[in-house]
């Protein structure tokens, strides 16, 4: 075990991986989308001019191929671009008087560079009706391509640019969980064999895990503020994580307050195993039984279901590996410092 920890190849592997995920993960644009729409009501029986702002699009470059529709159930209403400037546009929609299947209209835009993008439930009919009567024209829906010409990350409602936090927040928690599993294994090995290095490893793995846990909480708080509106919404998953961290801090205090070396290791190992079993219950079982905002919990879809085009995966998997390797690198440095200190103490005695 010590031999693998002292080896250098995996440490150097983590450096290019981290550079890759930071550079690629932060710089790569997200997919085109409609960021805002200047009204939410439309009048049925009139030509409605709707002014929109888009994000990461090439409306002006691809003006010749731009098309827009309003979609309601199976009905499509073709729009005409009256003005396009940079990433803003004004589109006119003649909306015929008839009964529509659904209450909300989706706005869909397509051009040759950006592909197809939409804003779901964008518009709702106003109370009053217009006097113009259009015959219900059969609107053609033909596009050259649905795909964006560039590689992009998904542009999700609410998440927007914060989707990149997936490569930091989630992966740091992964690294923490791997370290805690490693610590659990070391504790079991210590109870079985009674060899001192196992105890030191269990202790330092928890210390490193707490560093990554704190980073995971901070990145998670940024994300929570952006998507849920508060740094710390009262949520079972979040509270479970905080309490689990308190349990591990108690582990560190317990280890610090025992005087006798072998007793210290044994008591700490027992508490570590006890805490880990309850920790698993905290994080993975409880939120499944209670309502939680967190993805993957309480009936919410996990990220794997959002990520339809798999573009996140090519950064996410390397990111998990990179953060885990970095965590173990940090751990191995702490371990070597500790082992050298112990050697020095032995020499002094």
């Amino acid at each position, binding site marked *: 075990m010590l031999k693998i920890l002292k080896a250098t190849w995996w440490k150097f592997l983590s450096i290019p991986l981290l550079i890759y995920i930071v550079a690629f993960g932060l710089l790569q644009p997200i997919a085109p989308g409609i960021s805002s729409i200047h009204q939410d009501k439309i009048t049925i029986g009139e030509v409605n001019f709707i002014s929109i702002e888009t994000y990461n699009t090439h409306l002006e470059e691809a003006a010749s191929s731009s098309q827009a529709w309003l979609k309601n159930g199976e009905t499509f209403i073709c729009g005409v671009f009256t003005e396009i400037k940079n990433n803003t546009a004004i589109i006119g929609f003649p909306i015929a008087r008839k009964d529509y299947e659904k209450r909300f209209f989706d706005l869909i835009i397509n051009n040759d560079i950006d592909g197809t993008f939409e804003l779901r439930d964008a518009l709702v009919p106003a109370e009053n009706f217009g006097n113009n009567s259009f015959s219900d024209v059969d609107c053609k829906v033909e596009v050259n391509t649905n795909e964006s010409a560039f590689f992009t990350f998904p542009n999700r409602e609410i998440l927007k640019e914060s989707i990149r936090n997936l490569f930091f927040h989630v992966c740091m928690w992964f690294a923490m969980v791997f370290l805690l599993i490693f610590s659990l294994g070391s504790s079991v090995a210590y*109870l079985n064999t009674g060899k001192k290095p196992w105890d030191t490893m269990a202790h330092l793995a928890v210390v490193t895990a707490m560093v990554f846990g704190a980073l995971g909480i901070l990145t998670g708080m940024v994300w929570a503020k952006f998507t849920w509106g508060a740094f710390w919404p009262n949520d*079972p998953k979040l*509270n*479970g994580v905080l*309490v*689990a961290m*308190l*349990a591990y*801090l*108690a*582990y560190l*205090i*317990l280890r610090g*307050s*025992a*005087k006798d070396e072998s*007793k210290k290791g*044994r*008591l700490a*190992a*027992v*508490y570590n*195993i*006890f*805490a880990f*079993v*309850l920790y698993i*219950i*905290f994080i993975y*079982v*409880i939120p499944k*039984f*209670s309502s939680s905002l967190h993805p993957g919990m309480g009936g919410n879809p996990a990220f794997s279901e959002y990520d339809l085009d798999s573009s996140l995966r090519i950064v996410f998997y390397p990111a998990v590996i990179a953060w885990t390797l970095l965590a173990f690198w940090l751990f191995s440095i702490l371990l070597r410092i500790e082992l050298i200190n112990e050697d020095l103490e032995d020499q002094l005695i």
Partner: protein
Amino acid sequence: MISQMFSFLWKEFLVEWRNKSVLGAILLYAFSTVYIIYSFQNFKKLSAEELYSSWNILFWLVILFITVNAISKSFNHEGSGRYLYYYTIANPTAFILAKILYGILSVLLLSLITLFLFILFFGFPFQQFYIFLLAMFFGGGGLAIIFVLISAIASKVENNFVLVSIMGFPLILPFMAFTMQLSELSFAWFDTGLTKNVIILALFDVLLVVLSVILFPFIWRN
């Protein structure tokens, strides 16, 4: 082993009985805590929903502190020489099982007394009383099991009273969440999710006992 366990259990009763001041202190503790709540919170002002939720929260809070006080002494009240003696003659599984059993019994007794005091001071709000008793049995029992192992760890270290709290409080949280979910049902007319909750709590209890039995020998060795 079973007979050993029962003789340890009997011994615990004897020790408790001969040292009546400890028992009296805990009872007084329960009474004064409930009385403080009574004098601070005017329950008559609350609407029905507020009454139920504060009833539930305050009751379990009181039980939690009583449990900490009642259990945390369980490895301290005999001298360390006595434990060395037990170590040489007894089976650790029998010893920890006796401690757990005694802890569960004492917490159940204390929570029954607290329940009586609560009903006396704050009225009887239950629609389905048996659910509350179930929650007390599985929830209070689980609290006792967790704190027995925690106090066994803490008894080996100095300043152990603080340690019992800081090690125990994070660990009891999932347990309390389920217990309170279950006991909330006792204020309602329906019992959806009752069996699921009871099964989860019972599994929790079994898991805790198994963990304690596996881990205790390592704490015991000196």
